[in-house]
């Protein structure tokens, strides 16, 4: 008897779901589902089945540099000329410096050239990447099945949706500000100029090496999608954590004001952004 009731309840639920789907399909003005519904226990339990990406991930800088030659960027002719000019400036020690204003490197540059570490947080419906630098950088990757907004507000890191294919997190990013650079070093790169689309396949390459296979589409500065990869490693035996990384802090030194308060005072710097002794 009891089973029977459950069966009826299940059938009724299924009917309601089907009816709901039909209603949603028939009526485009149907109210939206809650964007961030309360996670259910099974969603928390599902996190335990994801690969172990805990710990502090540090970019492999030697690999970053080698990749620029191995996976050459398919710049447009105009962008290639600008990149050549910036590369020459960097080589003669007169770099423009793309990030001396301390604005975020954004996507995809964070993943391509940073020397700073980051960590992953897995919570129901989302993967979050938190990093040092740019005033504590952050990517939110929605894994709850949502689509991109039709017209996302442009941001430095864009709008990212992701899904798991086995142990690989596939991430799709759009909505990046046109001013965000596609950079191959801190002194060489060009703004994406709009229409940027990045697809990433992030997975463990070995026990403590994480690999991001990127496909970067930027129709205004690249002639075709740029496929490249980056490696990040973790040190299980070493005792450190992610630390705060406020880029603008370097423009100041610690001082005391007329009221005796601890305050930040501007620190003298050269045009290139390096700190100089006070008498220089």
């Amino acid at each position: 008897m009891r089973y029977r009731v459950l069966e009826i309840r299940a059938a009724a639920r299924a009917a309601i779901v089907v009816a709901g789907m039909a209603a949603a399909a028939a009526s485009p003005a149907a109210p939206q589902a809650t964007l961030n519904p309360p996670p259910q226990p099974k969603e928390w339990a599902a996190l335990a089945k994801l690969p172990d990406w805990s710990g502090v991930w540090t970019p492999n800088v030697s690999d970053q540099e080698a990749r620029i030659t191995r996976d050459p960027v398919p710049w447009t002719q105009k962008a290639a000329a600008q990149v050549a000019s910036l590369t020459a400036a960097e080589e003669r020690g007169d770099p423009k410096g793309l990030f001396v204003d301390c604005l975020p490197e954004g996507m995809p540059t964070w993943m391509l050239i940073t020397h700073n570490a980051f960590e992953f947080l897995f919570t129901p419906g989302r993967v979050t990447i938190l990093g040092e630098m740019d005033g504590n950088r952050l990517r939110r990757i929605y894994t709850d099945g949502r689509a991109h907004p039709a017209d996302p507000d442009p941001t430095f890191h864009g709008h990212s949706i992701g899904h798991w294919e086995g142990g690989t997190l596939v991430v799709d990013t759009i909505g990046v500000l046109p001013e965000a650079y596609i950079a191959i070093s801190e002194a060489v790169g060009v703004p994406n100029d709009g229409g940027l689309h990045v697809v990433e396949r992030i997975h463990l390459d070995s026990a403590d090496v994480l690999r991001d296979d990127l496909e970067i589409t930027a129709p205004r500065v690249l002639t075709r999608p740029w496929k490249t990869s980056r490696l990040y490693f973790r040190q299980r035996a070493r005792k450190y954590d992610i630390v705060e990384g406020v880029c603008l802090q370097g423009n100041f030194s610690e001082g005391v004001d007329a009221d005796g308060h601890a305050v930040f005072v501007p620190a003298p710097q050269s045009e290139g952004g390096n700190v100089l002794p006070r008498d220089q």
Partner: protein
Amino acid sequence: MGMREKSRGFGVLAGLIAIALPAAAHHSFAMFDFANTVSIDGTVKEFRWTNPHVVLLVAKAGGAPDAPEVWSMELTSPGNLTRVGWTRQSFKPGDRIKLEFNPLRDGKHGGAFKQATLLDTGEVLRSNLREAEKPGLK
């Protein structure tokens, strides 16, 4: 003495001009001459454990006590240095060191830190991230 005061006044002015420039801190290291290594002995004046670049100010040995020749060393970030074993206590004001660095190309008293030996303990501090890129280090 008068000369020194004058040069100090200029230093303050130069500082203000530098502040007014749209310069900041998260920069390429191309302004340093990595083909050249300079070595000096000196005393730590200040160790700024700040993002994005840690700064070490060193008074070169042999200078006038009231107007030392100060050299500014730039390093990577606190986070990156933490991962190669440094702490914000790695240097303290007054530490006597032998310093090796790649100098600024423009001849100013600055450089990219390469290595320092604490003369009182013999401890050597290096900051090259590439030396610790392999996973599985102890």
